[in-house]
């Protein structure tokens, strides 16, 4: 069995193969000590992330007591970075569950040992998505009202219900996978669960899209395409995240993953990216073709203030597809590059969607504003040039870092406490 540890130190300790064979005993001792130091490093990381997360909570309490006036959200751009991150993380949660459930649902070959880690990553992302909605609320102490006075015609209510179900299903699914792998659970039950997990995953992205896509008030948002488009973006970012996590775990020797599986995943990433950009193209054409206000939106994205975000998304999509579809370029380093830019590209897309929705006001006549209408950043530029109506404040960045640390904390804790990795590589 000790032979199985090979990939672990082959990569991390840089011990040469022959040395290891000759000095078998010493090598296994050094493995022991690297594993100990790794264990210690992960403990330190867990503590550090916990401390940053707590600092984030302190900032959030400050936001609640001193007022959301400390954010740069204002009446004419009433959502900001938190909701951007919410959209991003709902999307990021897609990858893991899809990677582990799709092969099982359709009975095709899986992607190797990554399944359980990927599901755990999904769960952490879902928790973060919920956290980002909560920090955006003015009155989180009134959250109980969501149960008491639920207004089921609200897309936000739908999303809260579906997100909760999604979280529960993901957790049950992970638990069932672990049990089945231990030989105590039934594969049949697991397969049924994976069907539910897949349905929940598709639903959660669609319903999140409806928070925006059903708003007649914002021409940029109001499109039937938004649902499927959110699913495709979710697949891009979610799969990219799984690829990054897999690369890190592989590098640290905690995961054995065949190159073939890794390549198959990045090809899938290329396909998802193509679909996502195709949807974007369809949407732009539909908006722009009749001219009028729709053309203003196209101009806003392609040549206006949101152009940097738009072009980053397009160019990075092109690069991702080139890497994914050329066998000679499917090298680990390039795959990680493609994955990272894919996640950033989807973040750019969320930024375009959110800020773009508020950028063009329906009624633009000059008036006094009710309450500060724009954040300082918006105000400062409003007269000079049509700049962004919104840019996050330091407090918003601080709280976002806090929430992200909470995610890192959960992720590390899970890797340490749960049997997510193949037993022989677990430290």
């Amino acid at each position: 069995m000790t032979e199985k540890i090979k990939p672990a130190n082959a990569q991390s300790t840089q011990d040469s193969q022959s040395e290891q064979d000759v000095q078998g005993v010493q090598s296994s001792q050094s493995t022991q000590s690297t594993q100990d130091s790794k264990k210690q490093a992960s403990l330190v990381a867990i503590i550090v992330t916990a401390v940053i997360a707590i600092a984030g909570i302190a900032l959030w309490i400050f936001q609640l007591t001193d007022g959301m006036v400390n954010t740069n959200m204002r009446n004419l751009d009433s959502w900001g970075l938190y909701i951007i991150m919410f959209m991003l993380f709902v999307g990021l949660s897609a990858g893991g569950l899809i990677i582990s459930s799709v092969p099982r649902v359709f009975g095709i070959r899986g992607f190797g040992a990554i399944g359980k880690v990927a599901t755990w990553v999904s769960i952490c992302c879902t928790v973060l998505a919920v956290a980002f909605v909560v920090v955006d609320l003015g009155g989180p102490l009134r959250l109980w009202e969501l149960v008491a006075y639920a207004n089921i015609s609200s897309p936000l209510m739908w999303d809260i219900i579906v997100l909760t179900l999604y979280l529960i299903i993901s957790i049950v699914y992970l638990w069932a996978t672990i049990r089945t792998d231990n030989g105590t659970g039934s594969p049949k039950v697991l397969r049924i669960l994976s069907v539910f997990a897949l349905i929940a995953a598709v639903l959660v992205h669609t319903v999140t899209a409806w928070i925006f896509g059903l708003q007649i008030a914002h021409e940029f948002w109001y499109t039937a395409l938004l649902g499927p488009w959110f699913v495709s973006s979710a697949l891009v970012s979610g799969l990219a995240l799984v690829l990054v996590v897999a690369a890190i775990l592989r590098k640290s020797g905690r995961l054995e993953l065949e190159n073939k599986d890794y390549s198959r995943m990045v090809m899938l990433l290329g396909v998802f990216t193509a679909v996502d950009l195709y949807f974007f193209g369809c949407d732009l054409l539909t908006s722009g073709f009749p001219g009028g206000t729709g053309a203003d939106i196209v101009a806003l994205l392609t040549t206006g203030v949101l152009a940097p975000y738009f072009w980053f998304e397009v160019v990075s999509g092109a690069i991702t597809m080139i890497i994914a579809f050329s066998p000679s370029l499917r090298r680990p380093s390039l795959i990680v590059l493609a994955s990272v830019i894919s996640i950033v590209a989807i973040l750019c897309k969320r930024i375009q969607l959110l800020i773009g929705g508020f950028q063009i006001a329906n009624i633009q006549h000059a008036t006094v504003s009710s309450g500060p209408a724009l954040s300082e950043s918006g105000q400062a530029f409003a007269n000079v040039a049509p700049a962004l109506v919104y840019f996050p404040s330091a407090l918003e960045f601080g709280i976002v870092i806090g929430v992200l640390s909470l995610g890192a904390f959960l992720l590390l804790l899970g890797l340490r406490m749960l049997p997510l990795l193949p037993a022989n590589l677990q430290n």
Partner: protein
Amino acid sequence: MAEQRLGMVIDMKGCIACSSCAMACKIENNLPDENWWNRVLTVGGENRDTPSGTYPNLSMESMTLACQHCENPACTRVCPVGATVKREEDGVVLQDYDKCIGCRMCIAACPYTGVRSFNWEEPKYCLPFATGDADVPSHQKHVVEKCTFCNHRLAKGEAPACIEPCPARVRFFGDLNDPSSEVSKLISSRKYQQLLVERGTNPSIYYLV
């Protein structure tokens, strides 16, 4: 069908942009600093009270904007806790500060830019005492608020506070479902406009043009 559909008719031809209605609203409802439920807009010009066009072909027009108390409101449907609802008896769209969780979904949903406002901090007042009607619910931090058609005055059978102070007498209030009401007669005899009709909200504010 609702028994009543309370609404307003505002004659844009006569509005002199004096802001009396906006001030009356502010005082009546004891609005916090910088908060205006009803505002005067200058149509066309780049800044307030500036004409549009180039000299000598200038024109200037003003209109007032507040919640349109839509017959088919976009805001009430999206509120997850029902903190903003349309009262079926008279069609007034109301806001419950005690219920609102501050998610700002309604601000995103309302097509009429800026009629809903969020209290981004503890409400502040430039005067050391409260103004207006004592029956007005007190303002809260981190909730959304907007024009209520002076719900507290409706309860006493009075029209909203912005109607009477208009020196040009261009603001009218009444039941749009009653064909004999002043507002119904005005819109049946004059050319009118509703804002953003294409959004399907069917606002209850009619602008005579």
